[in-house]
């Protein structure tokens, strides 16, 4: 339910904002056309993000983001994929041509063996990294375990998308933990340009979080500190963090940077947070949940967790 109301709420918000800033625009001497353009762009992006089912009046995006079709496709796949919205992350784009980047798919995790192309769109390899190029990761990992290393779809599918493909990958990275599929992958990656991160810090057999991060195919040699991270600090973390570091924290930081579209996150306010021993109870208000690529809203949420 709370997802069904989302389009209406967003519509109301957009209308309200545009209405109220008309005055500001006039004060600043900016023409109404610009205002209309702003509204148009905004709506377009929101619709493209597919966080809910909008009745689109806006024309299909296709420009900056990967064609919506991909999304649809993806959605069908039921990947936990986020909407194509990749807002932040200025990825330097386009790797469109170079499959390599895409190959990196952090997203591959999501791709449980699934459609190859799908993942790639989103996977903008955060790392500038050596081109993993295109080696298409040998076809989807069997069983879909995420060996992150195997990036799915080769570049070709990627090519289609205009660079923009989402940055979700960055967000994805932290989630990669899920399917660490660690060691298995080494084999695959080896073939492809992807460099399996099997050895090196991440790999250590420790349970330390790093392993999952293996998505790094980023060319990484384990010891090589990944050059910055284009957006993924998570990726970096793999390279530079010690095993003692909590990978989750890294993931958090990353997500904090604003991967709204990529990571499952809830923005809300709290009324009360209480704890008894290891049982936590919270009362949250006015929240916006972004999960599995969809948005949900709530006026009130009670949470019970065990730590």
């Amino acid at each position, binding site marked *: *339910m*709370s997802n069904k*109301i989302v389009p*209406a*709420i967003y519509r109301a*918000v957009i209308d309200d*904002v545009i209405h*109220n*800033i008309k005055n*500001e625009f006039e004060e*600043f001497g*900016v023409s109404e056309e*610009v205002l209309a*353009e*702003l509204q148009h*762009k*905004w709506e377009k*992006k*929101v619709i493209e*993000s597919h966080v809910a089912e909008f009745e689109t009046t806006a024309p299909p995006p296709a420009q900056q983001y990967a064609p919506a079709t991909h999304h649809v496709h993806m959605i069908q796949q039921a990947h*936990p994929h986020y909407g194509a*919205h990749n*807002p932040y992350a200025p990825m330097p784009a386009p790797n469109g041509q170079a499959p390599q980047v895409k190959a990196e798919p952090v997203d591959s995790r999501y791709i449980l063996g699934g459609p190859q192309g799908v993942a790639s769109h989103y996977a903008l390899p955060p790392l500038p990294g050596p081109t993993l190029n295109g080696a298409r990761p040998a076809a989807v990992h069997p069983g879909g375990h995420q060996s992150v290393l195997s990036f799915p779809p080769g570049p070709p599918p990627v090519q289609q998308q205009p660079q923009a493909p989402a940055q979700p990958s960055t967000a994805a990275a*932290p*989630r990669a933990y*899920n399917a660490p599929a660690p060691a298995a992958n080494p084999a695959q990656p080896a073939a492809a340009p992807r460099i399996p991160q099997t050895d090196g810090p991440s790999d250590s057999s420790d349970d330390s979080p790093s392993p999952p991060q293996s998505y790094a195919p980023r060319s990484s040699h384990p010891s090589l500190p990944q050059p910055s991270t284009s957006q993924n600090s998570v990726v970096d973390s793999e390279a530079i963090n010690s095993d003692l570091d*909590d990978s*989750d*924290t890294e*993931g958090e930081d990353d*997500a904090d940077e604003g991967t*709204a*579209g990529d*990571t*499952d*996150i809830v*923005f*809300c*306010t*709290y009324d009360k*947070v209480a704890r008894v021993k290891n049982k*936590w109870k*919270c009362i*949250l208000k*006015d929240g*916006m*949940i*972004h*999960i*599995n690529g969809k*948005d949900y*809203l*709530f*006026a*009130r*949420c*009670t*949470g*019970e967790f065990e*730590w």
Partner: protein
Amino acid sequence: MASAYYEFYRGSSIGMALTDSLDELITSGSITPQLAMKVLQQFDKSLADTMVKMVKTKTTLRGHLHTYRLCDDVWTFIVKHPSFKMESNEVVSAPRIKIIACKNGDAIEPGKK
């Protein structure tokens, strides 16, 4: 006027869409950054007000708390295997979720705190 509202909603899907659109307009020179700031402030307010007015749904959430943090009146939780129960008994889960919660149900108002 100028009551401050929480800005963290700018990180949401709709907020990021707006921010991106504004950035594009700034880059193209159609608007100034100051105007963009005003727009975002208006967005903070509109979104908060609209949510309070129009959203009435309740949700429950369970999961395993992996990390908790309180800093500057902002709680950040990382919950593993969360499961959200939406109103229509719809259950949504994910492997992991981060929750960012600011204090109170109300926006900060100047003069308070």
